[in-house]
């Protein structure tokens, strides 16, 4: 199957610091790709360069087969929906209106219908009329996920969609994204929880210092060697009755 999104040999700087040093990424429809790596590995930068939000010094990003720089805003929005890491909202709009912002291409009435359906899907239909700033962080995250789903894009890119969520909401978020993939979308998520990545993603991309350290099925990509060299962890993925978990301890000891 042809990739809907590819990034090849990405090199990029933030200020003077090299944050991407030749990283690549590719995702096909029906697949959930997890991007993991320590803080500062370049996960967000990789997504942003791939979406055309950040300039590439070298390399190329293609969406739907076309260089991302050649797409106009409407074409790009038809191809990809993006949930940024930043969840701060400027105004206290009702949840329904926020979710409807995912569908600016539809007439207002239809956008609200789509928004209502997506709020239901993420389990906050009863909060449709509540102001998003009057909600808990978890509720707001669900509304923003509903906004992402309302884009109906064939590629969904979510930057740390589960940060700060309780365990149930984390699993729900990834289940919903998996359901989108099952329905034919390509999904890319960045995650810090390696266990969650291992059990929820079809493929895992491990970034380290702006380079791809490993890529493949979770069990292969998150090998003990990678855990040690990239994450400084002494551990392994373990198969349990409810899925994969990571058992690990820090490799470096606290110096006193």
């Amino acid at each position, binding site marked *: 199957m042809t990739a809907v999104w590819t990034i090849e040999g990405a090199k990029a700087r933030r200020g003077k610091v090299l944050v991407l040093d030749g990283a690549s990424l590719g995702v096909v429809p029906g697949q959930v790709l997890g991007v993991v790596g320590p803080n500062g590995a370049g996960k967000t930068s990789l997504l942003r360069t791939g979406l055309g939000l950040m300039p590439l010094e070298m390399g190329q990003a293609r969406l739907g087969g076309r260089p991302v720089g050649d797409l106009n805003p409407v074409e*790009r929005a038809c191809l990809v929906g*993006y949930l940024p890491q930043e969840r701060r*909202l400027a105004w206290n709009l009702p949840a329904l*209106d926020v979710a409807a*912002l995912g569908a*600016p291409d539809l007439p207002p009435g239809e956008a609200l219908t789509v928004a209502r359906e997506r709020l239901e899907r993420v389990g906050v239909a009863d909060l449709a009329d509540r102001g998003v700033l009057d909600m808990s962080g978890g509720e707001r995250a669900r509304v*923003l996920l509903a906004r992402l789903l309302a884009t109906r894009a064939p590629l969904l890119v979510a930057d740390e969609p589960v940060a700060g969520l309780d365990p149930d909401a984390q699993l729900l978020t990834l289940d919903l994204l998996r359901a989108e993939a099952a329905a034919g979308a390509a999904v890319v998520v960045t995650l810090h929880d390696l266990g969650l990545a291992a059990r929820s993603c079809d493929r895992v991309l491990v970034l380290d210092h702006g380079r791809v350290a490993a890529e493949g099925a979770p069990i292969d990509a998150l090998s003990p060697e990678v855990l040690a060299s990239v994450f400084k962890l002494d551990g392994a993925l373990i198969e349990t009755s409810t899925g994969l978990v990571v058992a690990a301890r820090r490799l470096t000891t606290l110096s006193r």
Partner: protein
Amino acid sequence: MSPRRLEFLLLLALIATAIVAVSLGESPLSAAQYHQALTDPVSAPGEVLWTIRLPRVLMAALVGAGLGLAGATMQGLLRNPLAEPGVLGVSATAGLGAALAIAGGLAALPGAIEAAALAGALLAGAVVVGLAARFREPEVLILFGVALSAFAGALTALVFNLSPSPVAVAEVLAWLMGSVENRDFTDILRAVAPMAIGAGLCLYAARGLRMLTLGEEAAQMSGLPMARLRVAAVAGSALLAGASVAAAGVIGFVGLAAPHLVRAAARDDPARLLRPSALAGAVLLVAADLAARVMPTEQELKLGVVTALFGAPVFALLAWRAARSWRS
């Protein structure tokens, strides 16, 4: 409250305030005189109502609406409830333009001060539009606006400093305090065109302002032509603010306060807020001008002084209430 209902109520309030503002004034009229004014527009009382008070009220409404709309647009664009037209430095540069025209002895030429003020505002607007196209972060616009305001303020002070005639200084000062007295229909016509263009640009940008609720990056990925909408918002509010300063001098607080008055009723939506803010701004300024006229002071109060005197405490009260709700 539905947006239509809110706008309808505000429109009613504006009409009511305007009727009161045309009826009342410094020289009280008797019932017979009102009757005469209504039946015979060219009589002396008719003159007072229709050629002195009416244009003044219309001008106050126009300027108030412009400031309210510009304020709501700026707050949406900068995602900051403290933004107002003055933040971009447009008001200050318009004031500088007027000060230069007065000090240069152009005050006698009809429309010269207004043209100079508008030119100053458009110059600042062009600078800020350029910046807005280049930088996405609202902080950048605010910082440049503060710098531009300070610089224009310093140059205005320099005009005072170097002005050989105290008369010119007094004239500039009076103008900077803001007023809509002695306006006629020609003045209104002059202000209408730039205001209409500015309002059109701001309303065009409305959907972009709403999308910006999600933050810069999500808005950029939303499929809306954000670069174009951003420039429209900046250019539109600069035109509105510039035309307001050109028509009535520098009038503070209306642009800041009007959006806050209707924010809750508009469900905090930066797009739905625009037209109600314009209407609320018009009501506020017509009422403020009425207060300036009927207050029994030796010298008639300047409009900018009244809006600041009333606006600042009211705004502090609003900020207090808002801060309490943010904390909870």
